[in-house]
């Protein structure tokens, strides 16, 4: 299994505050990764470190085994990056933007980019400044995919799009994945959209990795337990409580545990990705015990 993104004790300090610290993750190639966490959690910092836009203060990050700051040519020709503000030149036509892409990238595929935009009915002679938000995002995506990357990093690409534009954007992205091989890292607050397309998650909170792993593994090991309050705490060995809420008689626990370790006397149900993310976000100190064979996370 090859590793697309590997961070080892990665940290970035801005003045007196750490934007990201002790970040260690291993993202297998071919995954579609949801990068989630509250604002200021370090998502953009991690993406900027990955493409070498900022220098690490501690540790390092490698893409397909190469550090972006040591071998930028090797790394960046294989990586597409779409920054949060969707930087395009408003006075350029769509065709001009593609020309820019062609001149700046060795592995450029003009026909892929043009076919994609024609299918979406985006006129190539239209000025970028006159496109809708959804069309701008699609042009930026076509530029990032036109270089035929092995890895594409997208920083909140859905933030300003209406539901239809989001659907079309993600449809285009998934189409490229199925034509693959392509690894995707996608940061967003829209958990419903992420649940649909992603199969891996990295959750940052307060500049730290709080949880990471494949969605199948995470879904199988996270549960909602409801039971009598008196029982809370009994038979809970090997179970990590992420969040608890106690009523007069009843307790509700958000836990991480192997299904066979679940205690008797509790009503257990599975957690949706949204419930899981919310529970972790609300409890920044909840950090699962490390199982490196599954996650490669060092707290």
């Amino acid at each position, binding site marked *: 299994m090859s590793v697309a993104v590997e961070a080892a004790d990665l940290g970035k300090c801005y003045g007196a505050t750490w934007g990201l610290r002790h970040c260690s993750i291993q993202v297998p190639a071919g995954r*579609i990764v949801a990068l989630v966490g509250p604002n200021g959690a370090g998502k953009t910092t991690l993406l900027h470190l990955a493409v070498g836009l900022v220098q690490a203060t501690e540790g390092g990050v490698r893409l397909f085994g190469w550090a972006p700051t040591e071998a930028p040519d090797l790394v960046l020709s294989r990586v597409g990056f779409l920054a949060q503000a969707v930087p395009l030149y408003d006075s350029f036509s769509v065709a001009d933007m593609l020309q820019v892409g062609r001149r700046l990238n060795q592995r450029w595929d003009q026909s892929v980019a043009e076919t994609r935009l024609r299918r979406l009915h985006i006129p190539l002679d239209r000025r970028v400044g006159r496109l809708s938000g959804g069309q701008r995002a699609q042009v930026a995506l076509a530029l990032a995919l036109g270089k035929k990357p092995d890895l594409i990093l997208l920083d909140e690409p859905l933030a300003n799009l209406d539901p239809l534009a989001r*659907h*079309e954007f*993600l*449809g*285009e*992205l*998934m*189409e490229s*994945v*199925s*034509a*693959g091989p392509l690894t995707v890292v996608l940061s967003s607050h829209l958990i*419903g*959209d992420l*649940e*649909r*397309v*992603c*199969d891996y998650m990295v959750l940052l909170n307060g500049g730290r990795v709080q949880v990471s792993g494949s969605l199948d593994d995470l879904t199988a090991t996270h549960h909602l337990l409801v039971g009598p309050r008196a029982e809370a705490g009994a038979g809970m060995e090997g179970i990590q409580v992420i969040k608890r809420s106690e009523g007069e008689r009843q307790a509700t626990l958000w836990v991480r545990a192997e299904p066979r370790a679940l205690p008797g006397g509790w009503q257990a149900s599975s957690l949706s990705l949204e419930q899981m993310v919310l529970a972790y976000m609300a409890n920044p100190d909840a950090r699962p015990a490390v199982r490196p064979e599954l996650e490669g996370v060092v707290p």
Partner: protein
Amino acid sequence: MALLIFHLEPRSGVPYYVQLADQVRQGIHFGLLRPGDQLPTVREVVAEVAVNPNTVLRAYRELEYGGLVVMKPGSGTFVADGAAAAIDQELYGLLRRELEHWIDSGRARGVDDETLAALFDHVLHGKQREGVA
């Protein structure tokens, strides 16, 4: 034109791969998909419904396991020879038209879709109980 247009319901709580597989099963059940018909490619489905490609593969594999489709590497996924419709095309059309008429008549009287669905279920279950008794 595609024989089957998939759609996904995010709030139903039914896993996406099950929803996709169910829609194929339904298509076969109603005779809209016949033995030998090709299902949309994974690439076509993910572009249409914006879902992870593995979700579509999982749905197709499950259908193959159930003997409803055959996946031929390099050429596509096809409805299996043994997959038969529960009712023929003509009868399907007739019942569908009657049901559409019933829905239109309810809506014209200001009944919402949720109530219509509940009413249909209620009457169907009532009939089933009569059948048992």
